[in-house]
């Protein structure tokens, strides 16, 4: 973690600010720290200590003997070497990355399509679309996954029924969950169904912020709808799209619960685990806490690296 570095930059910008803008309130300087104290304490307990524990544990030998109270031994980077030299982990990493990127890009593409559609349709149609988007967005994740299990049920599910009706006779009784590929098709369907609304509504908000004068001017100059889209609308909402894509990538990398819930249907666990599931199995299942901690640190570092552009954009807002 880069805590020393951030503290240093934080302190320097803080003092720079104080030099330029006079403090609005002359209160005892203790007050802000007292106000922050509860939040900081709960963050240290709920997040800080677990991160610290994981760093330490990932560097220790933590086997059965330690389970029974033996003091842990330092193992250096042996846990990392052990975990990262296993084909198991790399298979999971590759699967997670592919799954994450496919879902993130499909979600953003569909979301953008929905946003453009909302712009093009009648007000009533748009309201209907917005309400359905909100409903899908509001669905609790667990309920959504369970509904999709019902929709994709091999015997009484609607999806197999409809596919059989339109001529795919081999889909009668088709078991979606027992093969990795179709398993991930259903998992993606749930995740995309749940994530598109956020992208669509954000992109739509971005589109409405585009000034009508600009569009009017383009029309007067003879721009076709396709040209308006490519040269005006997309460039203007690119900041929103890139942030939304980044958030989707970060969120889709941490998919755990959806996979876990779908695996209950008798899916091949070893071939359908993503990173979160791998950690769960390693830690809770096999009690290999050192290995699980090492993979967790990997996930956290990856998240922090990926989050950097997003955090920077928010920070810009804070300083504005």
């Amino acid at each position: 973690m880069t805590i020393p570095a951030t503290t240093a930059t934080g302190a320097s910008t803080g003092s720079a600010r104080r030099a330029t803008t006079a403090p609005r309130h002359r209160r005892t300087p203790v007050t802000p720290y007292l106000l922050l104290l509860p939040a900081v304490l709960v963050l240290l307990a709920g997040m800080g200590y677990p991160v610290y524990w994981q760093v330490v544990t990932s560097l220790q030998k933590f086997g059965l003997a330690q389970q029974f109270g033996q003091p842990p031994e330092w193992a250096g980077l042996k846990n990392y070497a052990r975990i990262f030299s296993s084909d198991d982990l790399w298979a999971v990493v590759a699967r997670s990355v592919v799954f994450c990127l496919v879902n993130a890009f499909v979600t953003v593409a569909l979301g953008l399509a929905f946003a453009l559609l909302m712009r093009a349709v009648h007000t009533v149609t748009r309201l209907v679309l917005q309400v359905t988007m909100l409903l899908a967005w509001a669905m609790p994740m667990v309920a959504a996954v369970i509904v999709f299990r019902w929709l994709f049920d091999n015997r009484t599910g609607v999806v197999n029924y409809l596919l059989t009706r339109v001529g795919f006779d081999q889909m009668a009784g088709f078991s979606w969950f027992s093969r990795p590929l179709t398993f991930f098709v259903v998992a993606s369907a749930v995740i995309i169904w749940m994530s598109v609304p956020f992208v669509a509504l954000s992109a739509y908000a971005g589109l409405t912020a585009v000034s009508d004068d600009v569009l009017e001017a383009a029309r007067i100059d003879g721009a076709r709808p396709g040209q308006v889209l490519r040269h005006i609308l997309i460039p203007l909402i690119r900041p929103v799209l890139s942030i939304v894509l980044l958030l989707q990538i970060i969120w889709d990398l941490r998919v755990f619960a959806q996979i876990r819930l779908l695996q209950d249907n008798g899916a091949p666990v070893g071939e359908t685990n993503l990173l979160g599931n791998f950690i769960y199995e390693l830690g809770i299942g096999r009690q290999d806490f050192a290995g699980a901690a090492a993979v967790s640190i990997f996930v956290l570092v990856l998240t922090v690296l990926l989050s950097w552009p997003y955090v920077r954009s928010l920070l810009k807002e804070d300083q504005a």
Partner: protein
Amino acid sequence: MSRSTFSVRSVAPAAVASGARRRRRAGRVLMNALGIVAALVWFFPVYWMILSAFTPNAWLRTTTPTFLPVHTTASNFVGVLHGTSFPRSLRMSLLITLTTVVLVLVFAFLAALAVSRFRFRGRTSFVLAVLFVQMLPAEGLFIAQYRMMSTLGQLNSILGISVLYTAAVIPFTVWMLRGFVAGVPAELEEAGMVDGLSRVGAFLRITLPLLAPGLVASGVYAFLQAWNEFTIALVILPAESSYTLPIWLRSFLAASINRGVDWGQVMAASTLLAVPVIIFFLFVQGRMTSGLVSGAVKG
């Protein structure tokens, strides 16, 4: 979402030269049809959940589904509420959610006050830390949280998991409330003090009422997170007697897989889980979109 810009735009095409008008109208009809189809596809899972919840199980077991509500019954709901441990998990969910909401509101409000009303050493580091912490996935922390809670003897405890939820929710709520607090000018408070109110009095009578919408939004956000949470609850609440609703729903379904799932009851339980969320969600939705992407929108 601004409605006014849309109405201006929808008038504009009518003014365009008449040559392309017919083709354009055909295009609009097509677009509207596409919009309706898309809305139906997206609405279908929610509709199917509610419809199945009200359908007798005998009908759900047939291989030819009925798409309209012709055989309705409330017996699935009665079965879930009386024949299962749903009420116990409901109670657990409510207790954990309420504890989380209260802790989050108090702690996040105080922190937001500090961040937006004061300039102090370490402020930027705190904001930066909050922004990064909000991105950390539960999936990268739950092993450590599990070990910590089991060492402290806090597995299956309401307070233990509420603290974890509070830590997970606080970053975003501090960020959201910060905007609200900054939106109430300090001069307003000072004017109240000039008019004879004490500092606390000025705060209670002037600032707090203006912050009410922000507090409601934060509270609802915390409610949604705690109510829906699955991953941490799966790890921290292993005992059946302390299952929250999402965990209960999963085990209820898993337990019935071998003897044929009672989808009617499963969907009734899912509906009961979803309805409060959908209602509350509509309150905060606008703020959540703008909170998450406002940095990008403003550029």
